[in-house]
């Protein structure tokens, strides 16, 4: 599948708007969105995944405009095609690590329980699978968030500053995991980050000003 943008701009509540360069990304591609804090990296990810509307221009998936869907259809469409990973991953704190990962399958049903268990094992999460989210480290949370996104089997993975809170070792682990797993499911990967440690991992970058 191909994700493209045409002349998109986003307007904020204070009426300021940001115009973005056109993007063209196929499933299986990986790209790094670079730029300083406040340049609109996160907003672009939100616009691509239809969380916020574009002020001008179009976001197209395989040539179809996805901005005119109802709220319900947007939610459904987003969860089918976009897996989102945040700088501070969000979880249901009442659930365990495994249950948070399994939650994605509840609404998508793309993975069986066995496949989820295999995924948990492959991401070295077995030891903490039955722990509450509040009892695991930041790096483990990021791995859990990646595992949950993989259960969705999205067409594109959009990661917003996934490594900024991590030390070098965990930064390498997380980005390698993201690249490796997105390639494994042939998902397009867009990482928005101002973290220079990620530069070597991405042959293609989009610089925002």
């Amino acid at each position, binding site marked *: 599948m191909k994700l493209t943008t045409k002349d998109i701009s986003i307007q904020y509540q204070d009426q300021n708007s940001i115009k973005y360069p056109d993007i063209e990304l196929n499933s299986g591609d990986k790209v790094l969105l670079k730029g300083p804090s406040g340049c609109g990296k996160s907003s672009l990810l*939100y616009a691509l995944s239809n*969380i*916020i509307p574009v002020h001008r221009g179009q976001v197209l998936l395989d040539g179809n405009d996805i901005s005119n869907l109802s*709220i*319900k259809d947007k*939610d*459904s469409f*987003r*969860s*089918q095609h976009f897996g*989102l990973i*945040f700088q*501070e991953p*969000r*979880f*249901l*704190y*009442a*659930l365990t690590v495994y*249950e948070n990962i*399994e*939650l*994605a399958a*509840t*609404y*998508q049903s793309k993975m069986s329980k066995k496949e989820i268990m295999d995924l948990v094992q492959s991401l070295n999460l077995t030891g903490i699978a039955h722990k509450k989210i509040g009892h695991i480290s930041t790096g483990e949370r990021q791995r859990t968030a990646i595992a*949950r996104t993989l259960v*969705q089997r999205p067409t594109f993975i959009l990661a917003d500053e996934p490594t900024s809170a991590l030390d070098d070792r965990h930064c390498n682990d997380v980005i390698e995991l993201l690249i490796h797993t997105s390639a494994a499911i042939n998902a397009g990967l867009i990482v928005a980050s101002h973290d220079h440690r990620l530069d070597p991992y991405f042959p293609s970058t989009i610089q925002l000003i």
Partner: protein
Amino acid sequence: MKSLYIALKNSIHRPLGPILSTLLIGLSVALLVFSLRLQNKVEHRFSENLAGIQMILSAKGSPLQSVLCNLFHIDNPTGNISIQDAQPYLRPNHPYIQTAIPISLGDNYQGYRIVGCTEAFFNHYGLNLASGQELTENNSVVIGSTVAKELSLKIGDTFHSGHGIRDIGMEHEDGGPLKVVGILQHKGNITDQLIYTLASTVWAQHEGITKIDHGIEGDSLNHATPTIRSNEDLLTHVDREITAVLLVFKGHNMQVLNFGRQINARTTIMAADPAIEINRLYLWIGSGMDITYLLAMAIFAISMISIFISQWMTIKERISDMAIIRILGGGRSTVIKIILLESLIIGGLGIGLGYLLSATAFMTINPWLRDQYQVRLPIFYWNKEEILLCVTILCICVTAVLIPAWRLYRLPLASALETK
């Protein structure tokens, strides 16, 4: 993973609010169920045991006490009246009186009252034998179905009656044992909880001293005392006493209305109107019930406020939950469903706790109620009123979280993701 599971996990994850709300709902439900059942029981008992009796003639005293004692078998007698004084009303072919039912009270067996009566009592209340035979001799008794069941009495069993209308351990040894000759069919009213004997047996039990004067012992007493089976037999012993006469009139006319007033004004006996006395009692009970209902409603209101505050205080966490669930494809309705289910879980647990508390309370006070008032509150009982109560509680639980739920429903996903 079902929404119910997430709702359960959420409730366990933040237990303080749900526990407090559940306790408060449980307390209010227990109070409401207790009040409802007590009120139902009292009203049911009064209406079913009124049995068409329109007036009670007894010794002067409190008319309410007379009604409670002679009709509902709850209170103490106001005293005895002589058959001499009662005979005008016991005579057949009275111009106003259709049925006169004389009774003699004053004894019990293990807390169950013994009623000395004539065949008029059995005829009026429509009492039929399930087994055994009718009363024909002194010192024979016919027992109600509840008495037979609770005391495991069977035909041929004998026992000594106790003095007084409650079991205080004073037996009538001198009057000889009473023998069960019949067991009545179940009627579902107070008659199931009484022991019946001939009026003359009550005299014999209370005049045991007489047998000593006559040199008679034990079971042979019944041969020394006249056997009274009918009102006509009773009228041949005007020197004796009975406790009361229950009256049913031939019609409702002005003369009947004045009948009671005339008795009270001109005779040594008292006429009490059960309908008037029961209405007075309802007024008293009603006030007590109203206070209990108000208390229960106040506790319930606090529990609802507690649910609302507990949801409102965790709204930030909810916003985060909603953001995740929407990103994973759950939709806004899923989050609302989880919040409503959490509230319903609290409501359901509260109702369960309330019924548990009320059942415990009933089990605790039932022996006392039976001894004092011949009443037993049903422990396992379900009626439309209580079903409506439970449904209303669940509806109010849902209503209590509608505002936070609506706020979440309306919140854009982008704003939810910005909430830390």
